[in-house]
Every structure is written in structure tokens, then in C-alpha cells.
């Protein structure tokens, strides 16, 4: 394993001075064992993201950007290092604690939409609301679906929707709980450019309207350029 120096370890732009920090990573490392050697996927990443920012995590294929995103969201457990979301130490919590924290603070948009095929568009959007135990889930979900322009598709199942529509449902689902923080993993990766642009518009609009911090993984330079900041990752090492 390549040792990295302390100075390399902290080559990340900090959140702007005076701005509250919503995500903080410190020495975040993920490594897996292969028969030959230890493979380091994310190597001691340390940075902070300010509330309301839009941040692009960019890097080549296999650079570890999706793994980093997963670690930031608590979807995966690091080999070492810590992450704070809204001041809470993510990995001091157990799996259930992390899930509750996500339910309260975090929304997620995946590259392949990841809608539950058994549920209608409305039910998919209702899912995080219901999991959080909110009583008026159906009404709120309808409202968000309206906002993404899918009011007339409420009763449709994912298989009855186009890719762009599915991703809009996913965006609606991510924003339904009005999270402080939205993670998006290659949100346009499976969409043609026109549809992708629509979804991106939607994401930024929701980010603006709800004041949500947006952290997205992309290798689309144009998309990265629209963000307030970029975090570049190369061979597991995070650079500003």
C-alpha cells in the first residue's frame, strides 16, 4: 500500500469561511483485500462541504468517486476515517442509526434510477416519507411529483415510464423528505443528453428552491462546471 503524506492527505478545499459545514470527511480510507495485495480505493480523503453548496466529485473511471460518495452517504463502511453529516459522526452510528440519519437529512439519486418495480411512481415517492413515519405521505408525494412534471404519471409503474421519467421520479423521491443534503451518483449516466439536461435542470432547480446541498458524482465536465465546487479524485486520492 502506498503511504501518503499528511500534506497530501488534506489537499482539499475547505468550506468557505463562516459557512456552516454540512459534510466533513477526515482521513476517509476504503481498502479491500485481493488475493495478491490490498487495494486502496479511497485514500485518506479529508474535506468539508458547506451547507447549500453544489459540489461535483469528478475523476476517471475506477478512480473511486462512487465509492467516496457511498462512504459520504454511509452506504458503505470505511476501513478507517470518519464522516460527519450535520455534525453527527456517521460511523459512530450502527446501520440502523445511519439509515435513520439518511431518512432525516439525506436524499439520493442513482445512475440507474433504482426505483422499486413493485411500486407506482407515487408509491415510490411516498416510500421515504412513510419510512420516516410522516402521516401525509401521499399528499406530499403528489406535490413533489407535480413539481417534477409527472402529476399525470402517479399510478404508473417504473416499467411503464421512460428513462427520463424514471429519473424524474427518482429526483422527486430524493427531494420528497426535503433533505438538507442530496447525493447523486452519475444522475445522467443512463440518459440521452437532452433528457439528461432536463434532469440536471431539475436537480439544480430543486437545489435552489429547497436550499439543499448537492453532492454529485460525474465525469461530465459541463455538469461539473455548473457546480460551485469540484472535488477531484484520482487513484483513490482526493485533490482540490
Amino acid at each position, binding site marked *: 500500500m502506498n503511504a501518503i503524506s499528511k500534506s497530501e492527505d488534506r489537499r482539499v478545499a475547505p468550506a468557505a469561511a463562516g459557512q456552516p459545514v454540512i459534510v466533513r470527511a477526515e482521513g476517509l480510507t476504503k481498502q479491500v483485500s485481493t488475493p495478491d495485495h490490498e487495494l486502496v480505493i479511497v485514500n485518506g480523503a479529508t474535506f468539508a462541504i458547506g451547507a447549500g453548496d453544489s459540489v461535483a466529485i469528478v475523476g476517471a473511471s475506477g478512480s473511486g468517486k462512487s465509492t467516496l460518495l*457511498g462512504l459520504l452517504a454511509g452506504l458503505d463502511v470505511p476501513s478507517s476515517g470518519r464522516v460527519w453529516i450535520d455534525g453527527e459522526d456517521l460511523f459512530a452510528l450502527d446501520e440502523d442509526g445511519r439509515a*435513520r440519519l439518511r431518512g432525516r437529512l439525506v436524499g439520493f439519486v442513482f445512475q440507474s434510477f433504482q426505483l422499486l418495480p413493485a411500486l407506482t411512481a407515487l*408509491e415510490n415517492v411516498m*416510500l421515504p416519507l412513510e*419510512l420516516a413515519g410522516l402521516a401525509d405521505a401521499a399528499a406530499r408525494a403528489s406535490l413533489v411529483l407535480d413539481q417534477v412534471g409527472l402529476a399525470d404519471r402517479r399510478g404508473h409503474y417504473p416499467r411503464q415510464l421512460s428513462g427520463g421519467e424514471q429519473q424524474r421520479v427518482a429526483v422527486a423521491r430524493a427531494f420528497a423528505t426535503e433533505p438538507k443534503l442530496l447525493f447523486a451518483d452519475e444522475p445522467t449516466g443512463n440518459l440521452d443528453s437532452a433528457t439528461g439536461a432536463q434532469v440536471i435542470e431539475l436537480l439544480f432547480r430543486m437545489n435552489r428552491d429547497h436550499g439543499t446541498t448537492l453532492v454529485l458524482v460525474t465525469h461530465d465536465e459541463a455538469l461539473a462546471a455548473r457546480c460551485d465546487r469540484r472535488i477531484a479524485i484520482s487513484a483513490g486520492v482526493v485533490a482540490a
Partner: protein
Amino acid sequence: MNNFPIAMRMLRRNAHSGEARVLFAALLVAVASVTTVGFFADRVKGALDRQANELLGGDLVVIADHPVPAAFVERARAGGLAVASTTTFPSMVSGADGTSLSEIKAVSGTFPLRGRLRVAAMPAGPDREVEGSPAPGTVWVGGPLVSRIGAAVGQTIRVGNAPLTVAAIITREPDSVLDYFGLAPRLLMNDADLAATGLVQVGSRVTHRLLVAGDVQTVERFDADMRARLGRGERIEGVRDARSEVRVSLERAQRFLGLASLLSVILASVAVALAARRFSMRQTDGAAMMRCLGAAQADIFAINAWQFLALAAAGCAAGTLAGYGAQAVLSHWLSGFFNVALPAPGWRPAVQGAVIGLVLVLGFTIPPLLRLRNVPTLRALRSDVAVAEPSSLAAYALGLGSLAALIVWQAGDVKLGGLAVGGFALALGVAALAGYGLIRALSRLRAGATGPWRYGLANLRRRTGSSLVQVMALGVGIMAMLLLMVVRSDLILKWQESMPADMPNRFALNIQNDQLPAVKAYFAGLGLSTPDLYPMVRGRLVAIGDRPVSPADFEDQRARRLVEREFNLSWAADLRPDNQIVGGAWWKPGEADPQFSVEEGIAKTLSIRVGDTLAWDVGGTRVSARVTSLRKVEWDSFKANFFVIANPGVLEAYPASWITSFHLPSGREEVINRLVERFPNVSVIDLTAIMGQVKRISDQVSRAVEFVFLFAIAAGVVVLFAAITTTQDERVFEGAVMRTLGASRRQMMLTQLSEFLAIGLLSGVVAAAGAVGLAIVLSERVLGVPYEFDWVVPVAGLLAGGVGVAIAGLLGTRRAVNSPPLAAIRAVT
């Protein structure tokens, strides 16, 4: 290209996958179910074969309902054969503690010619093998007589008019393998004492046997010579046909248990098909890649087929071992039926198990394998290229056809087999329809449900096909168990309760003409109502119309036996209330014209119609009369009834004995003791004891069937796991998405639980409805008692289904709940 090593290398990796485990488990359960029955039946048959001449007590037996003609004895002795004779009949015996019916066997000093008796000094005491039989003046008795009448060794008991001393307790008789069915305990005496008992009289039901033994050729010559000279009521049984009735009932039982065991095979086939399909799906990309690398279609097929065959071999071997173990349990439960030790089973059932395994593997894994053959090479580049799917019904035709053939083979004849195939198909079809309707209905409730429950129900609906297969397989398994429960506890009890309190519980038979007034007076003197006494004349059917009757004329075994033996004929002026005319008309008072009325069942068996003239041989005289009516008889009235009744004036001139049935209130058993003391030739049969015996037998048989149906439930569980396996990826994915969206472990478990609880409850509903439906048919059509709904049945069904499936489902989906979300999403997408 040598595919075998590649296949084995791939199998090492695939063996840990869920579908390989399911395939293995399905084969294990199916093969175990069939081999359990096979091994058990093989052991019983082995016992019958090995001890055939012991069972006979000799190498050949001449059996007659009259003393065996001296010519047979002379011919046997002239040929140098050893001979022995036995005379068997039921009679009452009395001792210091009471009286009891006993199966008396009076034997010559040379009995038995083959095999040995075993005796002990007290019941359940240490026993030893003895040569020969009781000395004159002594008897050997079956254990139950010791407690019933006080017939301990050294005590004197009365057999008819003769006082005889008990010299030993019989623990094993060579010529009775199934003494379980004997109505009464055995008493063995020397035939020198027979005359002194005064028990063998006109009309007594006595069987005479002449046993011969010697070298094979001499016995065969004797057989050939004497078979040609058999008279009426005489027959020869050799080792070959020894205990043919036992064999026939055993084969019937084996057939039934075998068919019951096929239920698990059918259910297992569903699991095999599901697992094989999932296996094939997972191999799709690999197959496309191999084709890119130069593998021919045949190679792809062979590599995967080798893997299935290896798994099948392992499953069959494990199933056979499990079957071998399970048959020991079955033998133990049914040990009451046999008084001989069962030999070890042979290898045939293992072959049968292997055939079942092969049918399942070939019939239900080939279609998905063929699908792999057709994977387009382009798939290696683009994962969205579809693979041509064979039409499922046509693809599985081979498997379904083999299953049908298996059922027909197990049933032993095409008609029964066809019925069984139809029955299984109907049961599964109805279960499928009911399951489909219920799934649709339940998924409508989802709008009203909240949170995890809604998602569980949504999944139930989305996976309708998979849910349906699970509901059907588990429902049928549980239904089989519930039905047995209903029949065993409920229906039989209700049937017994439906009988009137004063229903006869004793038969007294063998009452002689001159004892009639005294017997009537005896009952009257005790304050009991005078029982109705019916005359009985023994006669053999010799002709129907102009056609002489011979056993060979009939295909039906029962018809043959009926014609071979003597009937009990009776006469009556009036039609009894428990008889009903269903054809022709009962005679009018004073009609002198000789007539017969025949019971409808026997008329059908022997093809007798109203208008036929029946001729009987009664004590050497021919008695003929026209059949003028057919009767339906309520046999379960437990009154003495007769197949053939004549009008007054036809049979009175012939030697007759009388029979009666009466109700003896409990606690008045001394009535029987005194009756038998006064009239030693009269035999009293205790019907409550027989009913108890019937209940014990039916209990044991239903336990055996229940045991076999346990495999069906196990197969249902394997189907459940197969379905879980096929949907594992989906579940893991959904779990990960829900986790990402903030679902707690509890919420995720509730989602899984709601789906499985629903599947379990639906199986329970299907099972309970099916069991209640069948119970209604059984109850009202077969037993003739109105069915009373019992809440225990649906509650047991719902509990078994709901709780069982929920637990199994949660166990099966642990991975979906426990996988870290990112890894799970990556693994699936």
C-alpha cells in the same frame, strides 16, 4: 473439447449458490419421500418372501371348509411327504377371571412342519424356540388370554366342554405374520382333545388345513396331482401364493403410500424447475462469453448438463440415505402389524429413487439448459440482447409427461394412475386458481395499508407468478396434513358418536336349534330385551341360471373368494327396517314359490340379476330358487345381516345355527361369562374391541400417511426457498434502496414479513378450504354423517402457513436485510 473438468471447476463455484442448494434439497426431499416408502415395502415383502414356507407352516397346504378328504393324506404319505393338520375356528374360552373369544387352532402332533413356535412362561417374559406343539390335555395361549381370563401357566381353562391346562404362552407362531388383524387371541391345542370340547358342530365356521412338507419335486408332484382332484371348498396354497391376501393388501398399501409420496415429487419438480431456470439466467452472460471464446452450442449444453447431473447424483444419494433412515421410523410406527422381524431392505428402492431424481433433473432442467444453448454471442457485447425463450408448457412437456408416467407406474394400473394424475392436476389447478384470486384480492388491500405492509403487499402482487407457485405448493402440502388431521380426529369420532347408544355391541353365534328357547329365556331372566335371533344355513353357490359357477369364471378376487367359500344363507318372512329393496319386490306373506333376496353389492360382484335362478349346495343337497329382489343393507347398523335370504319354506329343513346381536351395557360382562358357561359352543364377539382395533389400525395407517405427507410439506418449503432464491437479487436490491432511503432494520424485516405472512396465510386459506371441502365430501358421502364445521381446521391451517412461512421467509431473506446498501446495489446493477 473435454467439458467435464471445466464443468466440475464451475460447479465448485456454483455449488454454494442458492439455486444449487435448492436443486439439491428438492432432489433430496423427493428421493427421500419415495425411497422411504420403497425401502419399507421392500422390507415387508422380504419378510413375506423369506418366511413364505414358515408362514404356511409347511411347503404346501390343502385348505378346506370341511375335513380334508383322507385321499389327500394317503397320497402325501405314499409319496413320502411329512403331514400335519390343523383345525381353526373362533370360540369362547373361560378361565378363573372370565371368558374371551379366542381363535382356536387344534393341531396334530407333527405341527409345524416348517418353522418353530416360540413360547414363554409368562407374557413378555423371556421366550424360547420349541419343537412340536402342545401335548394332549394342555394348551398354549396367546398373551392377551392371560390377563383376560386368568390363563397363566399351570391354570386350567375350559375350551367348550373340555378342561385343559395352560402349559405355555405363545410369543411367535410361524404361520401368522399379521396377527394384528386377528380378532381374538390364539389358543393352540392338541387335536386329540378336539372331540371332548364339543365345539365343532353343524354350522360352525371351521377351517381345516392339511400341511405337507418334503423335497421340492415330491411336493410339486403332489401339488400337480391333487390340484386336479380338488373338490368344492378345497384349495391348495403353495409357497408361491402364500399369504396372497396379505401380499395384495400390502401392494395396495404400498401403492397408496407411493402415490402419497409422489405428491412431494410433484412439488419438488416445481422447485427444480425454478432453481434450474435461475441457474440458467445466471449463466447467460458466461455462456455468451464462452461462445465468443469458441465454445460450441453442444459444449455450453454439456458443461451445464454435467453440473446438473453431478448435483442430481449428490441429491439422489443424500435422498436415498435419508429415505433409508426414515423407513426405520416408519417401520417402528407400524411394527404393531408384524410379529416377525423385518429383514434389511434390498437395493431396488435406491434405483427407484435414482429414476425419480433423473426424471426430475432431465424433465425440468433441460428446458433452461436448451435456452443457454441459444444464447446469442452478441450478448457478450450488449447485455440487453434477449435470449430466445422456449415456450414453457412445450418445454416442460417432457417433465410433465414423465411425472404423469411415474404416477401411472406407481399406481400400478392405467385407470387408477389416470385418476391420480387427474386428481393431482385438479388439486394443483384448484389451488392455483384459488391462490390467484386471493393474491389479487389481497393486493387490493395495499392501498389501505401503510409503510412496510404496503410494500410487502405490492411485492406479492408484482411477483404474482412466484407468489402463486409458493401459495400452491405450500397450500397443497398443508392441505394434505390438515385433511388427515380432520379424518383422524374428527370424522371418525363423529361417525362413532352418530351411532345410537343402544347399538348392538356383541354378536353371539353358533347357537344351536335346541338351545333357542333356553338362550331366549336366559336373556329374559336377566332383564335384558330378548334379542332377535336369525337362522343361518351354510351353502355353496353352484349355479347362476343355467351356468355352473366356478372361481375361475371371475376376474375379481373378491368374487373368486365368495364362490370358493360357503355363504351364510338365512330365511325371513318380513323385510327388516335396516334393509331396503332396490330391485324387484320382497315376497308377500304365504307365497310358497321358493325365492331369494340378494344384497345389491354381492349381486353386482357376482353379476346376479333379479330373475336369475341361484342353485346352492347345502349339505350335499341342491337348493334352487329365483332371485326376486335386491336389497340395500345398512351394514353399519351392526346387526346380523345376510347376503342371501330365502322366503320361509326353502331352507328350514336343513341344519342351521342361529346368530344374534345385542347391546350389552358396560359393567355387565358377567352376562357373557354365564352365557358361555351354560352354552359352551356359543361364541360371543365383542364389537367394541373390534372397533377399537379398527381405530388403532386406522390411527397407525394415518400416521404412516402423515409421515409421508411430511415430505410434501418439506417439498413445499423447498419451493418456498426456490422462489426466495429466484427473487433474492430483487430483494437484496430493494432492501438496499430502502436502506438508502432511511429504512430501519425493523422496517425492512416488516416488509419481508408482510409478504411472507401474506403468502403463508394464503396457503393456509387454500389448505383449509381444500381440507374442509374434502372433509365435507368424505363426511357426507362416505361416512354418511353431516359435516360439522370445526374452527380448529382453518386456524391450524392459517397458523401452520402464516407462522411457518413467515419464519422460513425471514430466514431465507436475511441477506436482503443484512447486506450493506452500496455493495448490494452494485452487485445487482
